[in-house]
């Protein structure tokens, strides 16, 4: 059966994730409200943007609890930047991590670097007013650390990173998630 990925499209860079999936020939649907949520899909992407804005709309549109429930029940999920913040123990409470927001400061602190992720290799990493993980729970696997700060993690059905693979031409992080979590046996 063909894989279909839902992308949370409340605010932020959700189109960019669609474009990556398109390049990988994977179908995607945008979730803007509760009625969009009522269709079947095989995985969920939480994109970059402003986590406060997304949280607000997610709660108002009654999406918070359904999203939390399906992720806790094992739906494959991938969060980038604000999406990683949403997954932590202060927000959706799905991953056993605590994320520090704006950890690299304001826009002048934004940067790009080539760096290694476990299981993938060296990829371009774009950090935009980015967070990092400041607490990692026991069941969480650290996939990448930059200057002693954790920037990519995996826990069971969940993958999250501080940076934005969707802003580069490199599709390997998405492919890794699709192959090992969405279509793999996690």
């Amino acid at each position: 059966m063909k894989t279909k990925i839902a992308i949370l499209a409340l605010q932020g860079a959700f189109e960019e994730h669609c474009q990556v999936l398109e390049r990988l020939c994977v179908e995607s649907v945008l979730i803007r409200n509760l009625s969009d949520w009522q269709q079947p899909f095989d995985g969920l992407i939480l994109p970059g943007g402003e986590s406060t804005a997304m949280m607000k709309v997610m709660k108002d549109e009654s999406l918070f609890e359904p999203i939390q429930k399906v992720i806790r029940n094992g739906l494959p999920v991938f969060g980038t930047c604000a999406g990683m913040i949403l997954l932590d123990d202060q927000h959706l409470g799905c991953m056993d991590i605590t994320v520090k927001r704006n950890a690299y400061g304001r826009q002048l602190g934004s940067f790009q670097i080539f760096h290694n992720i476990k299981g993938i290799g060296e990829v371009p990493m774009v950090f935009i007013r980015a967070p990092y993980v400041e607490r990692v729970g026991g069941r969480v696997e650290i996939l990448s650390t930059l200057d002693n700060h954790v920037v990519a993690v995996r826990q069971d059905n969940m993958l999250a990173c501080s940076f934005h693979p969707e802003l580069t031409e490199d599709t390997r992080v998405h492919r890794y998630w699709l192959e090992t979590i969405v279509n793999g046996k996690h």
Partner: protein
Amino acid sequence: MEDRTQLNRNLAQMLKGGVIMDVTTPEQAKIAEAAGACAVMALERIPADIRAAGGVSRMSDPKMIKGIQEAVTIPVMAKCRIGHFAEAQILEAIEIDYIDESEVLSPADDVYHIDKRKFKVPFVCGAKDLGEALRRINEGATMIRTKGEPGTGDIIQAVRHMRMMQSEIRRLVSMSEDELYEAAKQLRVPYELAQFVHENGKLPVVNFAAGGVATPADAALMMQLGAEGVFVGSGIFKSGNPAKRAQAIVKAVTNYNNPEILAELSEDLGEAMVGINEQEIELLMAERGK
């Protein structure tokens, strides 16, 4: 392309599908953030009051901007006058997230805009048409917004500017390659930028609507016309119930294509800003800086 330019374009991408609200105090900034704003614009007076007060309007007091930076965690933007690169240097020194080189303030230079490539901090600029947008991008702007007519609560100019840009983009897309040279000349823009639009059917940077947005329906209209997000200036804090209106506009931008949701969130918003019609205004801010 330089790393910095790319990173600055990327920040604008993160703001897409969101609402950037004008705020004049830390309290207003908190209301905006709680309502779901994706960024705030810190300024001493909102455009409607600038219009009413008259006189020369300038960059805000850095102390006031810092107060707002401390009050919220979302990006904070601030305005400098067109061509006033010293004001821009000051805003960069206080680590503003985005500078709006804005026609809302009194222009400091009637010939030259700021050479925005000299800065690390990103710039958003207003435009009425494709030529203006691409000239600002060539100078280093990494985000574009329609000029609209700030402080009026009248959407007509923002609609005009967005329609103009979109129709000029469609025109470039439909051209044959050898027609692009002449088109670039007429638009007074570099050939490479005209070529980008021809190939991609859009600007190389994010394009927001601004100037005159007062209701959720206004925001939805601009999104359906092709805006990627919305600036709301006077429309929120000049209305009867700012918090409620702010939330409604945020949700309208997310669900701009869903009339049922728009109907629901347009209910009971209280008094909208009174506004002025375009025929009644004496000062057209959109005519500043081309």
